[in-house]
């Protein structure tokens, strides 16, 4: 019974396969433009060393996240495990790439350090806000409280 107090492990299971695919197509409809425009803006910002473009790039990615949340609300679903995994991997790769460029001594990451770090920080903040708004502080915390899962 404890499991249902956590954020659902298979959040789209109640949908039939066709509806699940429909949701996938809907999610892609949001992420395709948000992802492409976000990456293009980040690339332009890094090429021209203009913080405005970098901020706009992160704003596009956040807009994609907001769109994804909206789809979940409309369809009564949550983020699926695969979606969360993909997000974590992409986010981790983004941070790793930024750190590698920084360590390699590139000019762009130093010149754009502040907007990039703020952008990278804004994403987990947005995720945290979403969790708190949707599930409340306690349930949001419980879902990350891995220690309690090992309690006998």
């Amino acid at each position, binding site marked *: 019974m404890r499991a249902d107090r956590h954020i659902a492990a298979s959040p789209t299971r109640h949908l039939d396969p066709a509806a699940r*695919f429909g949701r996938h197509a*809907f999610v892609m409809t949001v992420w*395709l*433009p948000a992802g492409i425009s976000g990456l*293009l803006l980040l690339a332009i910002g890094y090429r021209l060393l203009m913080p405005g473009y970098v901020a*706009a790039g992160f704003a596009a990615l956040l807009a994609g996240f907001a769109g994804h949340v909206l789809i979940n609300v409309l369809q009564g679903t949550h983020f699926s495990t695969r979606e969360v995994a993909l997000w974590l991997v992409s986010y981790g790769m983004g941070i790793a790439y930024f750190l590698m460029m920084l360590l390699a001594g590139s000019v762009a990451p130093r010149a754009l350090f502040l907007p990039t770090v703020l952008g990278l920080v804004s994403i987990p903040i947005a995720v945290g806000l979403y969790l708190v708004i949707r599930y409340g502080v306690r349930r949001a915390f419980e879902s990350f409280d891995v220690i309690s899962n090992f309690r006998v």
Partner: protein
Amino acid sequence: MTELLVAGWLALAAYAVYLAALTIRHHPDPGDYLDAGGRLPGWSFCFAAAGIALAALIPYAHLQFAAHFGLAYQHVALGLVVAALVATLFHKRLWLAARITGSRGLANLLGLHYRSVAVRITIWCLTLLFTLPFAARLLGHLGDLAVAALGHDVERATAIWVLALMLFLPAVIGGWRGMVYGITAQTTLGVVLLAMVAVAGAVHLDWAAGLLASEPGNPASLIPGVMQYSGGIGAGEPSAVWTTLGIFSFTLAIAAIMISPAVVLLVTSTEAGGQRTFAFTSVWMIAGAAMAALMLVTPLLAAGLVATQGSALPLGYSALASVLIGLDPLLSVALFLGVGVTLQLFIALLAQSGASLLVMEVLDRYVLPDLSARGRRFAGRMAVTVIFVMMALLASTLPVMTAALASVTLPLAIQALPALLGLCWVRWISRSAVLTGIIVGSLLVIFTEPLGLIIFSALFVELPWGRWPWTIHSALWGLTFNVAAVLLVSIFTRGGEERLHRDRLHDRFRAHHAQDFGGPAARGAKWSLTLLWAFFAIGPGAIIGNTIFSRGVIQAQDATLAMPSLYVWQITFWLIGVFIVWWLAYQARLGVVETKVAPPLDLDPPLPAFHSRVPAWIATSLQRFADIRPARSP
């Protein structure tokens, strides 16, 4: 830039194929292939309809014309509000008619309602025009775009065939549902990329300077009059085409896309029961988002292009492409992809809908009525293949003929408006009236477009007028005479047994799906406000917008604005237009579908055994031909 653009295009094509493959895996029922079993999710309709409305104006051409003709041409963007109004008026009723009668497709709906094979044939011809020359023309545009973007390194024909293949693969695999899912993603991508370029390109394009330079009196920021008494393009050349009547009549042609066979199939294959899908689409997606892309993005881009060029942009893809290539490479790629996907989604929709309608309305009904679901899917795939091959052939080998045929497609589509009014709202419009109107209207359209002018001058004599006489688009020429004919003929044919048949559907509408226009005052306000909006936004009243926000009324001094007066007028009437569409779609419930649909109605009773569906007049004509015998020699 070339490598990045090609990679982007290929990635989009790969995504479309991936989506199509997933579609067929999750929806393996062969009956789904042609029309998604009538269960397309509402959200996909919202995005797809907005994309189609945007694509009807062909953003690449719109950008090019706006940079050449200025804000006078930009005014036609208000046509999307007209398209939203047309969608509000018809989509819900068409969906209901399809659900009540159990049929899909425009030809089936009109054919059943008017009990007329001639009406069916007319709509099939229209479908064919959309599917082949019109889509081929768009494919040609896409090919030109690709050639220009790739710096003329590839042949036009090669580009066209490669692009056709890229569009064909997802279509043949995924069917109707896969195609609709594909175009939803392309719609959002197109809108976002265009918006991104307009905002991010401010540095490169200097659009702010371009707009600020549009001071009062600048011809590029003025509508050149209500109309011009010229013979039309090619005969007594008008000094400017985009007069208020030119704009108004052109918006009618744009709005025709909302009642085209392809969009009606999209409407009738959507699952919309108990939802506000149609209202949301008309108000927020077409009049809102798609319109915003045209109203807020293209003028900025066009102003920026003019500022970069230093003068009005010459017509032609090369001029536009050369300016675009000069931008930041990433921005160029984004812009080329943005305008490219809007063309792609339109071509995909027209080809796929043509194939589906061909199988459902012709093959399944007349030729092979006992075809299994798998057989219908196979036939659909064959039809898609043939359509894409013919489309690519037309686009690559016969561009002039294709352009001539494509130019009459949208104006001819609007000639079906009285027939749709009869199906959805006005029960006294009769079959004879509809047919007479379509014939008269179509003749007017053909003879005010290059197609009729070329044929007539080649066969007989040169006509004394050219294209769009008096700067009135052929759509309005045709519709004016069409409506007059419909009214005249309906006076004499509005009753009789045929009327009883038409009343059956309208009685269902009245009993189960009545609208809520409110009391007499509210009803009057709704229609009068709509007409007033049309007069001032796209009608002769728009001429006031040239100077009203810039020329001093009380003081002699002109007001200094950051943008031209006409642009302010356009934005103002766009916002008022959104309000009107919202009022009609939500408050009058024109776009809200009730949870419970009226009981089914059989307008197509089963024929007795051994009875052919071929109408008597066609059978008789064929018999007469068959009975002709060569005269015996004495």
